[in-house]
């Protein structure tokens, strides 16, 4: 038996894992208000949670493209389960890999890879969304330790997280801390959400939570300029593939339904209006995949424009996911509005991707700046 782990074998393993352990239970996860901890543990056992970390830290050393393709396989089956990769592995794990001290990397990354500890990224607050530097959660310095007080909101995995990367401010400084849950940390699950209903989204309160100075991530004062921006870059890359996953899944549901559903005495794929929806979806999915692969390739090469190409990919795939999921609901008619059919969930989940990890409106500003620079041609030159 060949047990050699290759990128292709991991992606196939993720597909089979999703088929067996995720896809049949997606609706139940939503009804139960959360994916089970046991599922996250299984993902750790298969190596998915540390797939992108170096083997030194318990990872598989996947390159960005293979990690994206693995994310797509999980994301096609369940967005909430995919959010574990986005948050726990990318936002938290990859940021610790990038800016953590050797002690922090050696301690946390194997725990993240195995799923023994679940991490969440505690940035957003009731009044702090896109304007990340305006966090009200504050910290003060007590000799060789810090104390954090404040309330975070919209924190994916927040209710089950064992530790957090917390973004807090002190006067003009914004700093990131690695904070383990203790009795001063309380979480309240958020109900009534449009989507990510199984993602353990919570409000988190830190009440004079004491942490040693050694738990600063990076350096005091670089929370906004480096930690948040880097974490969001990792997160956006994950969300780019998450958007592709929804778009691909919605397309497959449309193609399948169109060949099975009969109206007016014929299969509905024979109607030109249906063919138009499917053809647009095919073109947009293919384009979205190209953008994800391009961003992944540039990330592999450490290309200076990888950050903006990742933004372009995320912007496009989230828009594409929303469009194709909307068409999938339309094509399914009443069944598209019913949670026994996949498009109902994809439609809700797609909207989230246009908001998180940089809203489309914020990203438009960055893409516009890039275009004004890159595609400027002085007349007569």
């Amino acid at each position, binding site marked *: 038996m060949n047990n050699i782990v290759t990128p292709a074998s991991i992606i196939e393993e993720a597909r089979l894992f999703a088929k067996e352990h995720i896809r049949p239970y997606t609706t139940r996860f939503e009804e139960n208000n959360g994916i089970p901890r046991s599922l996250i543990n299984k993902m750790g056992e298969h190596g998915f949670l540390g797939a992108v970390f170096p083997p030194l830290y318990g990872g598989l050393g996947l390159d960005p493209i293979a990690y994206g393709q693995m994310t797509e396989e999980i994301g096609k089956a369940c967005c909430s389960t995919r959010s574990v990769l986005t948050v726990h592995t990318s936002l938290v794990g990859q940021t610790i890999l990038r800016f953590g001290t050797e002690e922090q990397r050696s301690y946390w990354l194997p725990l993240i890879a195995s799923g023994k500890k679940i991490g969440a990224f505690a940035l957003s607050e009731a009044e702090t969304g896109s304007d990340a530097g305006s966090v009200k959660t504050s910290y003060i310095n007590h000799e060789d330790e810090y104390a954090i007080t404040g309330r975070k909101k919209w924190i994916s995995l927040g209710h089950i997280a064992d530790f957090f990367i917390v973004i807090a401010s002190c006067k003009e400084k914004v700093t990131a801390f690695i904070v383990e849950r203790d009795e001063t940390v309380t979480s309240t699950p958020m109900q009534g959400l449009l989507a990510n209903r199984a993602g353990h989204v919570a409000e988190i309160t830190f009440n004079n939570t004491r942490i040693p100075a050694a738990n600063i991530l990076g350096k005091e004062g670089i929370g906004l*300029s480096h930690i948040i921006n880097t974490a969001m870059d990792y997160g956006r890359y994950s969300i780019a593939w998450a958007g592709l996953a929804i778009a691909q899944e919605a397309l497959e549901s449309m193609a399948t339904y169109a060949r099975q559903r009969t109206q007016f005495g014929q299969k509905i794929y024979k109607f030109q209006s249906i063919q138009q929806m499917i053809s647009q979806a095919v073109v947009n999915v293919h384009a979205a995949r190209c953008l994800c692969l391009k961003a992944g390739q540039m990330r592999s090469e450490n290309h200076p424009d990888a950050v903006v190409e990742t933004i372009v990919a995320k912007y496009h795939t989230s828009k594409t996911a929303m469009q194709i999921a909307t068409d999938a609901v339309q094509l399914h008619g009443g069944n598209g509005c019913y949670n026994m059919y996949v498009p109902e969930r994809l439609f809700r989940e797609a909207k989230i991707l246009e908001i998180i990890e940089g809203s489309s409106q914020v990203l438009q500003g960055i893409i516009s700046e890039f275009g004004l620079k890159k595609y400027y041609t002085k007349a007569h030159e």
Partner: protein
Amino acid sequence: MNIAGKIREFIQENLVVWEDDISFSDTDNIFQLGFVNSLFAMKLLNFVEIEFDIKIENNEIELVNFSSVANMERLVKSKLMQAHE
């Protein structure tokens, strides 16, 4: 191209000001002048590490080290000297 030239070229590729005749000296603070966007500090750190094959330690991520061409050149030169010691 020398160190300062490479740094200057990277900054120019990432300027977010649109006048054709924009210019800055080696000692101008590009952040204070508003010449770059919020992502640039992160991009600049990645660029310096990859382009010059050096590792900037967390305690060296001071804005002052990255605020001008001259300051970055000084940091890169000191890191390269350390690497060869």
